[in-house]
């Protein structure tokens, strides 16, 4: 064997790698290769010594603040058509607020023949959110939202009350809760008792609506000839999910190519605050999709709008209506015996629901 052939392996030995036995034997019997090894070892040691001299004892202190995602919930089209019961929704809001996450739930459908106004609502000290309402179709005649503004929580509802020659009359309810402490509950029936203020609105105009204790809520908008897709209303209206987002939109789960559930029209978005989404279907139990590993969960492959995984020899595919995440992997936990009545959310066992969930609380559920 020539020393040139062994030289690369001398370097590998220096790194603690195992090498072929014939080459190892040559290095042991060859003074030239042994000298090369000694030099390599000496240089590596000297490099470490040099690094030790240079490594600073401290580094510039840093403050780690992550841009907080805005807390926004939107609703539209009436409770009866959503797959979230009123009570469940109220409790879902409570859970979300208690944990401080963001979630968007909406269900809209393209419609023809109606005049739609895409509203942008920008509260003082908060980020803008959007919602689309129809001036001719009562089914899409209102929308509402919750969003963080300054250091409090703003709830609002905007309804179309009428329209005439290029303008619409809006009925606006709003309520601002400053420095909310502990869980905040929201009940749409109670909110309906808040005073409704009426405004005539023309697209292109900006309405500065006064919100007691907050300041103003600016409303702008433009007419559209159709109800926009869900993504245009969601918090991040781009097709590409944000870095920490997990979007489950209109999920359809297949097991060995057979439909397990179909949540058409549902959007649940989780982020770094609450990085998992749960889907509950009576009789099937709960499915949790998380960007973080969960005890008992299986690793799943994420590709565009599909999550693929295997459990018990069965191949599962979750197909969704939009890209799910930037992450390559997610974790899926199936809890076939889960019943909502087992945990503290108070949701009904016989009603399906979806929403974000904190994986830390998944383990609290007693699975019978």
């Amino acid at each position, binding site marked *: 064997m020539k020393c040139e052939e062994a030289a690369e392996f001398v370097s590998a030995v220096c790194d603690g790698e195992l090498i072929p036995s014939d080459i190892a034997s040559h290095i042991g019997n060859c003074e030239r290769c042994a000298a090369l090894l000694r030099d390599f070892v000496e240089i590596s040691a000297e490099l470490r010594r*040099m*690094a030790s001299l*240079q490594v600073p004892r401290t580094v510039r202190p840093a403050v780690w603040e992550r841009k907080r995602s805005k807390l926004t919930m939107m609703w539209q089209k009436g409770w009866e058509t959503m797959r979230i019961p009123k009570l469940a929704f109220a409790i879902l809001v409570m859970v979300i607020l208690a944990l401080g996450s963001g979630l968007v739930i909406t269900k809209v459908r393209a419609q023809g023949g109606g005049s739609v106004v895409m509203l942008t609502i920008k509260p003082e000290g908060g980020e803008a959110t959007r919602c689309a309402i129809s001036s001719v179709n009562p089914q899409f005649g209102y929308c509402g939202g919750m969003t963080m503004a300054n250091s409090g929580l703003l709830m609002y509802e905007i309804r179309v009350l009428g329209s005439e020659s290029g303008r619409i009359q809006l009925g606006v309810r709003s309520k601002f809760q400053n420095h909310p402490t502990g869980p905040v509950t929201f009940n749409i029936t109670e909110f309906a008792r808040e005073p409704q203020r009426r405004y005539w609105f023309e697209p292109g105009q900006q309405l500065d609506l006064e919100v007691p204790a907050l300041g103003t809520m600016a409303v702008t908008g433009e007419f559209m000839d159709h109800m926009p897709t869900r993504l245009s209303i969601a918090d991040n209206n781009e097709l590409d999910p944000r870095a920490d987002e997990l979007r489950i939109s209109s999920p359809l789960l297949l097991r060995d190519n057979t439909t397990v559930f179909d949540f058409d029209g549902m959007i649940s978005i989780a982020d770094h605050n609450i990085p998992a989404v749960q889907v509950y279907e009576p009789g099937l139990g709960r499915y949790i999709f998380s960007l973080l590993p969960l005890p008992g969960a299986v690793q799943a492959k994420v590709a565009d709008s599909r999550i693929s995984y295997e459990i018990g020899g069965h191949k599962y595919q979750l197909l969704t209506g939009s890209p799910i995440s930037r992450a390559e992997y997610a974790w899926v936990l199936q809890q076939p015996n889960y019943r909502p009545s087992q945990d503290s959310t108070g949701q009904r066992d016989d009603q399906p629901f979806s929403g974000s969930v904190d994986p830390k609380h998944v383990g609290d559920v007693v699975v019978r």
Partner: protein
Amino acid sequence: MVNDQELWGRIRGGDASAFDSFYRENAPRVQVFLQQFLGNHAAAEDVMQETFAGIWQRPDGFQPERGTLRAYIFGIARKRAAEYWRRQGPSGTSLHQDPVVSDSGYASLLSDMLKRLPHEQRILLWLRAVEGQSYAELAAILDVPAGTVRSRLFAARYQLRKLWLGVKANR
């Protein structure tokens, strides 16, 4: 002792305290790594901070099966350093080079020799010899096969040895 996966979970979950501990533990070594390639303390400090801030703001790239969290950080730091060079353009090569800490041994000379190696060789040698990254981790960081890591490491060592022996002979 928190494992990488758990720590990453905390970071993703927004645990600033966990990330700060991680930063304090690893930032000095990342900074000195960057200093080898940027040649300038201030630039290395800036890029180091950019590296950690970027990971904090967008914690979405670490894959435990590809290596340790430390290896991941060095991989990101390397990319940030490359971006820095691109931003600086040709004038970046005239960056002020900080002297190495005074030392009666070979440290200062070795630092100069290291700068005479191509970038990729310097990165590879540093990450292996100083940071102890495995061949698999180096392959993931540089996006090359493990066999290529071995041959490139040899080339880097051999080149540095030639310079090293020359200096020793003249001392």
